[in-house]
């Protein structure tokens, strides 16, 4: 047999290479290698990464049938597996809450699990068993659509570097305590939380991603933050809370992040920052901040514009700016307060590093035009300014263009690109 074909090319490679190959195969193909030859019978059982996605069992239209076969398959694989399991991932939309999950997580907690990703289908949220909190070596945890209830005695995941909770039912105290008890946490992502007032204390945190209905966000101890992305949704409660707040949110949120390199704010973020901004003088400079992206900015609210200007002027090394306006066409406003632009409180310093500007959802309103003028005058190295109007209204766009053409430009190389498609 062997002589006719030639020597075996692959079976004698070290297990680390075999693992490298097998983990890049879909799990079904990996398990099937057990029937290739006698040397291959157990090679698959030693791999340290198990990933179960939507394709790990044959397709069927009946969700329950698929769920059953997924459950059987996973249980069988775990049963027959040998050795440590460092990564376990289930991203299967047909699988919903089922009792076997408890057993799997218990099994994993005994097998040195380091990365756990569970993203099940829409439907009943499953309850994470307490055995999860015994996974001492966990470095990455990603959960979707489940209930998480850490026991009181839980001392935290000492090795956890990345935490991602998406649509997870957990009490606010538990979240805060979980975050603060993971000393090595570098990346935090919380999405679809309702009505959460969050104080984050994570001395090693570098990447923060929040999306949901947040009443309040306070970055208490996050000196190493490098990248922030926040999408704040609004409800009536939150709106009321905003109105009554007397804090300076800008300070509370951005007061302690001197190493920030990239800031992205969506939906009501700019509004959130605008509260209380008048009252304080902001001495902080963000020397590393190179990219600012703010979406859904309401140009009718001068406070929001003020937020942007404050941010820009505190970032001497800003390279890229992306602003997107609200697509809400404002009700006819009587003379907009253009004095705002005349006031001397706006810093006159130049934006010496700004190269790219992109303004989208522009309605051509007076404040927007003033904003563009303001920036064009102060960016000597600007290369590209792209403008995307929000309405395809020829007349409106024409008016905008006329104004733009009048603007003075500090940079001779600046290209103003008006995208009208």
């Amino acid at each position, binding site marked *: 047999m062997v002589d006719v074909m030639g*020597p075996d090319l692959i079976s004698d490679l070290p297990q680390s290479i075999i693992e490298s190959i097998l983990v*890049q*195969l879909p799990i079904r193909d990996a398990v099937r290698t057990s029937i290739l030859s006698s040397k291959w019978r157990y090679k698959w059982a030693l791999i340290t990464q198990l990933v179960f996605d939507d394709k790990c069992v044959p397709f069927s239209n009946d969700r329950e049938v698929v769920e059953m076969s997924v459950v059987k398959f996973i249980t069988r694989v775990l049963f027959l597996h040998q050795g440590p399991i460092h990564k376990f991932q289930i991203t299967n939309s047909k699988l919903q809450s089922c009792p076997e999950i408890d057993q799997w997580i218990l099994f994993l907690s005994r097998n040195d699990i380091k990365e756990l990703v569970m993203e099940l289908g829409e439907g009943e949220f499953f309850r994470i068993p307490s055995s999860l909190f015994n996974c001492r070596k966990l470095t990455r945890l990603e959960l979707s659509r489940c209930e998480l209830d850490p026991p009181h005695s839980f001392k935290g995941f000492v090795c956890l570097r990345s935490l991602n909770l998406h649509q997870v039912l957990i009490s606010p105290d538990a979240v805060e305590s979980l975050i603060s008890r993971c000393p090595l946490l570098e990346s935090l992502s919380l999405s679809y939380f309702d009505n959460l007032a969050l104080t984050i204390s994570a001395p090693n945190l570098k990447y923060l991603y929040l999306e949901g209905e947040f009443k309040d966000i306070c970055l208490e101890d996050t000196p190493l933050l490098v990248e922030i992305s926040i999408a704040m949704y609004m409800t009536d409660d939150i709106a009321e809370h905003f109105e009554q707040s007397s804090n300076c949110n800008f300070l509370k949120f951005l007061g302690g992040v001197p190493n920030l390199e990239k800031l992205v704010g969506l939906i009501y973020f700019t509004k959130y920052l605008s509260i209380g901004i008048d009252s304080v003088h902001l001495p902080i400079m963000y020397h590393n901040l190179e990219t600012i992206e703010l979406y859904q900015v309401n140009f009718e609210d001068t406070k929001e514009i003020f937020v942007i200007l404050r941010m820009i002027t505190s970032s001497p090394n800003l390279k890229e700016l992306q602003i997107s306006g609200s697509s809400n066409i404002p009700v006819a406003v009587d003379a907009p307060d253009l004095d705002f632009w005349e006031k001397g409180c706006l810093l006159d310093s130049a934006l010496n590093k700004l190269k790219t500007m992109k303004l989208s959802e522009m309605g051509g309103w007076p404040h927007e035009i003033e904003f563009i003028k303001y920036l064009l005058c102060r960016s000597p190295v600007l290369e590209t300014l792209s403008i995307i109007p929000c309405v395809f209204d020829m007349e409106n766009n024409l008016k905008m263009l006329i104004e733009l053409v009048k603007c003075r430009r500090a940079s001779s190389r600046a290209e103003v690109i008006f995208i009208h498609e």
Partner: protein
Amino acid sequence: MAVVKPEMKSYIWLQTVDGSIHQVEEEVAMFCPMICQEVLQTGMGSSKTCAISLPHHVNPAILDMILDYCRFHQVPGHSNKELKLFNEKFVRIDTKKLCELTSAADSLQLKPLVDLTSRALARIIEGKTPEEIRETFHLPDDLTEEEKLEPLRNITDDPRIRLLNRLYARKRKELQERKKPKDVAVEEEPKDERSVEDLLSFINGADGEIKGTRANKNKKKNRRKDQTKDLSSKNANENNKGLNLLPSAYHNVNFDKALEASSSKHSRMQTLPDVNFSPKFEFIDGDVDDDLDPAVKEELDREVEDFARRLNSDWPERMQILSLGQGRRLVPISVNGNGSTHLYTSLCYFLGLDHYVCVEGEELQLSS
């Protein structure tokens, strides 16, 4: 008279397993962690006489390829697209070379190249049938038919795995049964001959009419209730043969035995609806049906779905029946596994009961 100065470039000298010496630009060679380490720690490689010996996986041809890779990648400033194109082109080589390259890259600790070649090898393996894979990589087809069907030998001596393996083996036999013409009663060779003999003698031939009619079995139910497990195992062959002959009565009987129900429940057992318990229970390893052709597989899948649906529709009734038996040790599902075991275990499984895995050590003593 101009004197042309030689270019002031540094070189590293490497020696491959065949003895030949290669002169390589320093920055290219140092891209390999293994070489870098050698140079820094031992100072070797600076001249022909103290060339660094490369691991034996690295022959001259492969070395050239690796150096090409290093030469391209050590230059900064390539765009992602350029890198991607280079990498894709780089691994468009025959499988033999790819394996050698992987091995060599690993011994030189060049992880990015190992990842690249592994991915290429994975792409080769993905989607192929076992025969195709064996042909591509020259793997010997040295598993016996049984071994191919029996997923994994239990090398950790875990009794549960042994049970599972036996169940698989039984199921496989049944599968093969199905393939043969239905009206031929095939003489099945039991996996554990010894144990069957043991059991026979243990039962003292009381129900020794193993090949007896179904009617007999029904009558003898009451006597058997304490010998459920032995009977189950004894019927190993029975089930396989009998399945195609008298499904309903047969299944009722086995179901009854498997549950070790008391006599009062027997009558209830009798009234079990006549479900076509196909012996192919996907629940264990339908997924490893690789040696069956797709048509058979499809049939299997369909039957299993059917079965599952039927089972689930009779849920309340079965729940009641099974729960009555729960207090006892339902576990005497024998290690030998057989049709009735399958029946019971699959039921348990579909109903979410875990008993079938709770086989304790003592059962295993029956078999080898």
